[in-house]
């Protein structure tokens, strides 16, 4: 199981968050155990990892992952898109007000199969196929959320949600405030974004930087099957509007996840690899480039600490801060563009809060401010590659 197990949180009114407990049997998937594993994340003690598996390799299918101390492997293996579906399905079972809307989510099963099988199970109204009208069906989701439902709105590609920007900014972000708190908008807006394999400029967009200024919105980015399921569930349960960023290239990642139900914390970052020399902050697909670079760095004698920030808005300043206080050097590796990206905001937040702990200027590696070209070579050069990450760390640690 991934080291990120330490950040799994099951939140319940009945459970004291400071003790590790097993709750009484609750809803779970058919065929799995009835008990729910409760692990409270306090983030202060990384020593809890003793005896647990650390992932030194982010892509879980590789054979060199250290074997578990137990003989039988608990949990079940699945791909990231299946993990998203599992999370969505569990929430739809749990609360009949959770519904899905988007293009081709129903009969087609979703263009990335995230909603496959859900329409036959829940019906065409709960898994609603919409016409191609992003602005309007996003607004529809918002109106439905105001009147009691909990829609999960899918953008077939994140870039299409630019058409829904009016609704996302004005209604999703602002309505709770302009109504004086009378209406809440518990929507989840999700979809795949990021640079894929020669998908062309419009299909390779990263909207996290565009949405980050919208007040009232939360943004999370998933990167592993484990956190995809946990964040999906947390986003659906949250009363705030949440934008869940998925990545086109990560849908087929395979990982073993727990059978027990778990919900992750929307606002927490994930410690991927503890280290001492430098803090590398990243999210989504760049996590894998970072981990690949980390292998090289480890061979060269460096000890990078890798944190998947996961929560793009708001930032988890606690996890990030503790890391900065330990390593004193920060490298941000992101896929969005340099100008006005998540990295710029993160840099500003770190400087504001942890200036005294820095021994070197914060380095930020982002994509070029370029519409993603079609040609494979050009496309490769727009995003950050592991070699650049290695070079950046070497420079930082001089």
């Amino acid at each position: 199981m991934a080291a990120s197990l330490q950040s799994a949180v099951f939140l319940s009114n009945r459970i004291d968050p400071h003790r590790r407990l097993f709750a009484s049997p609750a809803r779970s998937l058919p065929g799995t155990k009835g008990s729910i594993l409760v692990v409270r994340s306090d983030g202060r003690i990384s020593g809890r990892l003793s005896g647990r598996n650390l992932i030194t390799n982010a892509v879980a299918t590789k054979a060199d992952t250290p074997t578990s101390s137990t003989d039988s492997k608990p949990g079940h293996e699945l791909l990231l898109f299946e993990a998203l579906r599992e999370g969505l399905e569990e929430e739809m079972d749990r609360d009949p007000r959770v519904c899905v809307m988007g293009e081709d989510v129903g009969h087609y099963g979703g263009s990335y199969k995230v909603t496959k099988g859900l329409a036959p199970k829940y019906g065409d109204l709960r898994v609603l196929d919409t016409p191609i009208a992003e602005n309007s069906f996003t607004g529809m989701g918002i109106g439905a959320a105001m009147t009691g439902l909990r829609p999960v709105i899918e953008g077939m590609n994140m870039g299409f949600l630019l058409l829904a920007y009016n609704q996302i900014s004005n209604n999703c972000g602002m309505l709770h405030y302009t109504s004086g708190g009378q209406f809440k908008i518990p929507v989840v807006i999700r979809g795949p974004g990021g640079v894929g394999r020669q998908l062309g400029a419009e299909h390779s967009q990263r909207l996290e930087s565009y949405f980050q200024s919208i007040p009232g919105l939360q943004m999370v980015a998933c990167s592993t099957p484990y956190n995809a399921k946990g964040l999906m569930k947390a986003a659906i349960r949250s009363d705030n509007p949440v934008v869940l960023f998925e990545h086109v290239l990560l849908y087929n990642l395979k990982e073993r996840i727990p059978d027990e139900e778990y919900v992750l914390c929307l606002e927490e970052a994930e410690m991927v690899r503890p280290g001492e020399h430098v803090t590398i902050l990243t999210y989504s697909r760049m996590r894998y480039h970072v981990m690949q670079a980390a292998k090289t760095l480890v061979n060269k004698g460096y000890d990078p600490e890798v944190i998947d920030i996961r929560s793009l808005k708001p930032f988890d300043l606690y996890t990030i801060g503790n890391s900065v206080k330990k390593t004193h050097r920060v490298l941000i590796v992101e896929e969005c563009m340099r100008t006005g990206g998540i990295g710029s905001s993160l840099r500003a937040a770190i400087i504001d809060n942890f200036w005294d702990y820095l021994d070197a200027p914060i380095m930020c590696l982002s994509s070029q401010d370029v519409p993603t070209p079609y040609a494979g070579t050009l496309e490769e050069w727009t995003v950050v590659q592991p070699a650049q990450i290695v070079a950046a760390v070497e420079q930082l640690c001089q």
Partner: protein
Amino acid sequence: MRLKIQSFSISNSQAVVSRDESLVLYEDMVLGRVFEDMCAQMYYRGKMFGFVHLYNGQEAVSTGFIKLLEARDSVVSTYCDHVHAVSKGVPPRAVMAELFGKATGCCRGQGGSMHMFSAQHNLLGGFTFIGEGIPVATGAAFSSKYCHEVLKESTPNRLDVTVAFFGDGTCNNGQFFECLNMAQLELWKLPIVFVVENNLWAIGMPHLRATSDPEIWKKGPAFGMPGVHVDGMDVLKVREVAIEAIARARRGEGPTLVECETYRFRGHSLADPDELRKPDEKASYAARDPITALRKYILDKELASAAELKIIEKKVDAVIEDTVEFADSSPLPPWSQLLENIFADPKGFGIGPDGKYRCEDPKFIEGTSLSLESCLPANHLHRCLIPSESSIRPNSIKVRHG
């Protein structure tokens, strides 16, 4: 191509409304008119600011539709929403206080003229941008259908209805067409009525210059739903159409597009000099004032006496005076209110450097433009910075289920 204008007439010898109904309609329209006139006065006296859009002349549409709705039905409006709010039952005091920007306003002073909301009265806004309320209305209608068919919650065949109001300019906007299409889809058939308040002018752009086919009601059948054109200066005609449109929606037969030909007696907003509209156009519609028309109808059909109508008018005057006094004497929102209501779950402000959620930290707005540490006494700062009980939870991190 000129719009066909239906002429006003009292057609039947029998009254089409009962005495009680007619007085309800009269009072509602007078309330809307006097309220808006008072808004204009208050604006020029510097009690309210920004963009204020007044509804004078269009009262027949609001009253004609909204007085037929039940409490569980929803209304979605535009920036011209004061009268829709008052017709739907939002206390005029709350609306006026909101316009004055006071903490007792229906949206705690955070919304203003263009954002009237009331969860209690199912008024879903108040939207500033043209057309952005229509999808929200479609969503509310979707909820109604969902509750009926998926959750099995409503009484059979009696769906909650949503009425969406918007203007002629909006009918050239994409969201209008997208929602007409979606509402009428075979699976959906949403319980919604799309009401166009065609007052012939956007701001300075007349409907005829902006629209290739100006007969908006025809766009209904283009999407498979009935399209009706009605004289929006006659509350009884509007009501007649509304009865059928709302009943259709409630029965589950789907949406209707109703185009009400109406007119605004004032400019688009209080900042609009209103120089482009011709005096004879204004005069011809002023002669069709819906309140005067209903008054004449009531007296002609002997549903009530002039004295009784006078009593209603005096009552409305008193109500409006009271709203102004209430709004004037209400407190302004305190500084502590600034960051409330941004998130329904204030954990959205994130985890601070000390490991606690920032909403639990008294200093978390330090560094914003409103940090007044230097000018306020320390204990006042502490009291103001912690959001009120109602908006955050105590220290342990809990998540509400469902």
